[in-house]
Structure formats: C-alpha cells, structure tokens
C-alpha cells in the first residue's frame, strides 16, 4: 500500500529562538517550519539564519523540518537559501508566491547547493504560499513549476488584506480562494495546506475551521500554537468506523473481482471506482498515522 506523506499540522516556529528550535521535535507536529520571514526582525535576519543552520547541523529531528525563507525579491531571500541549504532541511517554503519563475529560480539555487554539498539531486523539497490574488491566479503554474513542489499553502491574513476585506469567524471571504487553491494543488498532484488560525484561545471556531477545510479537501493546516497540533491531527485522523467501512469496501471489491462480477454492492449501496479509491486512501492515511 502506498504510504502518504502526512502534513496535517505544519507548525511555525520563530527562527531566532534557541529554546524553541532545540525543542522543535517534541510537539508531535508532522512538520515544523523554522521561520526566517515574519517572525524575525530585519535586524536579526543574519543571526536567525545562522541559528537555523546550526540547529539543522546539530540535531536529528523526528519530524519534517521546513524553512520559510524571505521572498527572493527582498534583500534576504537568497542569503537565507545560501546559508541554510547546506544544513539539509527537508523543505523550503516560499512565501507570497506569484509566479512559476520564482519557484524555478529557488529550485535552481537548491539544485546547485545540493550538488556543491554532495546531496542527492531532489533531496530538498519545496512548498509555496499563495498570499495574493495575483498568486492565486497563477496557483496551478506555481504548483507545477518544479518536481520539488510538495504543497501549496494559503496565507490567509495577507490574502484577506489583498482582497481589501476582513476576516470573519466562518471565513466566508476565503471560501473561493481556498477552493481554487485545492483545485490547483490537486490538478498538479500535490498537497494543499490551509492558513493559520491566530486566536489560540478560541477552540470552538478553530475546530470548526479545521473540519471545514478538511471537508474542502485540504491535507493539513499551518499552526502557530503547539496546542493546535493535536487538535488538527484528531480532526484529520480517520475514525474506526471509517477504517472498518473502507476495509469492507475493499473486501467486497476484491470478492467481485474474484467472481468476475460486474456489479458490486455493500449494504445495499453500489460500489464504484471513486468509492474504492476513497477507501484505499482512508486505509493509506490510517497506515501513515500509525507510522
């Protein structure tokens, strides 16, 4: 069975905070993002990227480590890449992506440094956040710009500012953007990651949002608080009932194949290819969660 790469909870951590970087692996997040962008003042960009490099060199983390670099059109983006890539992070996350060319430019830098450092080609993956209307219009081109691309994320706060609106509790202003982002990611065959939810004290709205974005098709959510990691993972975990049903669907499907029967039914309901595919995905997901 195919093993899925889980990115249910991708947790941001400020890149210039030693106490957090050295404990990054303990929160159970599927991915931790060492942030060199918004969480680091312009006066500390150099110290943050050096701290991140030393952390990558010093520790073996049990989870995926991604680095959010500054955009390559700022004075910091390329320096971020040159400094941290020799530390062999799992993934580079580019903020405010607006074109395929940006992705390709970053991918070329990664490829060069992989060669210089003797890492196998393609070791370091990429993800990109869509944070503007312009970026959303290019979402598929961005998602498919490099084989390194693993996911598209939506940066909600910047996107809402770009729309010239405000954030509501039910997130209706993001509905179209979230849907289009999932469509682009699925068309490109990569994952879709939802935006952060800033109010760590509003569990009810947070959980409603996680259930909603899961239903839209997202693979996970960016989080900023360790407490949110388990909450997201619980929402995304297949239930025992779903797992049991998926097993029965696949058993019925196999039985029909063995009998060379063209019609497959389970509990009086017809089973066709999408239902089999969904059942396979539930079991693959459950296996990935167990691992």
């Amino acid at each position: 069975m195919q093993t899925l790469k889980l990115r249910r909870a991708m947790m941001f951590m400020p890149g210039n905070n030693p106490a957090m970087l050295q404990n990054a692996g303990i929160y159970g997040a599927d991915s931790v993002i060492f942030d060199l962008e918004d969480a680091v003042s312009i006066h500390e960009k150099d110290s943050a990227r050096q701290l991140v490099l030393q952390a990558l060199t010093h520790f073996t983390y049990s989870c995926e480590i991604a680095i959010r670099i500054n955009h390559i059109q700022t004075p910091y983006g390329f320096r971020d890449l040159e400094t941290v890539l020799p530390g062999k992070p799992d993934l580079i996350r580019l903020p405010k992506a607006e074109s395929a060319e940006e992705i390709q430019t970053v991918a070329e830098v990664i490829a060069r440094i992989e060669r210089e450092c003797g890492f196998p080609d393609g070791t370091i993956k990429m993800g990109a956040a869509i944070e503007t209307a312009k970026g959303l219009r290019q979402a598929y081109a961005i998602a498919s710009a490099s084989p390194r691309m693993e996911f598209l994320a939506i940066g909600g706060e910047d996107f809402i500012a770009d729309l010239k609106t405000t954030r509501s509790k039910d997130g209706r202003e993001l509905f179209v953007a979230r849907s289009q982002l999932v469509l682009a990611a699925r068309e490109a065959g990569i994952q879709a990651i939802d935006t952060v939810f800033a109010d760590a004290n509003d569990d009810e709205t947070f959980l409603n949002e996680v259930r909603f974005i899961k239903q839209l098709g997202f693979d996970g959510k960016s989080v900023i608080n360790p407490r949110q990691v388990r909450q997201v993972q619980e929402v995304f975990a297949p239930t025992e009932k779903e797992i049991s049903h998926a097993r029965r669907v696949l058993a019925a499907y196999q039985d029909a194949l063995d009998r060379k029967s063209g019609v497959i039914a389970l509990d009086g309901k017809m089973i066709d290819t999408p239902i089999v595919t969904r059942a396979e995905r539930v079991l693959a997901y459950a296996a990935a969660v167990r691992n």
Partner: protein
Amino acid sequence: MKSITHVAQAGTVESSDILINLAPAQPQSGIQIELATPTPKQYGAQIRELIRQTLTAHGIADAVVQATDKGALDYTIKARLITAIERACAPEGGN
C-alpha cells in the same frame, strides 16, 4: 587571517541563549574571554573552548569576547559567535 574592525554583538539574554560581545584586540594579544554563566564549574571551560575554537576556525587570532550565557547549548553558542564575527568583520555589520 580575518580581523575584527569594530565591536559587534549577537544573541540575547533570554533563556537558552547567549549574548556575545566581540571587540577588536591588539595584534598578537590573542583571544581574551570574559564569561558570565550560571554553570561556571560544569560548563565554563567547555564554553570557553568552543568560543576559542570557533574564532580560530574563522581566522580570528586576536579578539576580546564578553559572553553572557543563559544556558545556551553548543549550537546556539556557535551560531551567535559566527554572527558576531560576521558583523564585526563586515564593513557595516550587514544582515
């Protein structure tokens, strides 16, 4: 050999961090380290050695280092020192 042209700082005095102050020194004066740490007996010598090694590896033979340790691990000490070196040797610090 690199030379420190001006005083530079890196790091903080928050828990698990270290504040490094790096200043130029007379040629041939060597590396002088003034260390404040909550664990001088346990880790003082190790921190001094790491500071000395990191400076030497970056081609610094003469320097005055003031280090205020707040329980930093080796990776943080090295990172803050390298940043201080880059800032102290750069024309305008730069980041």
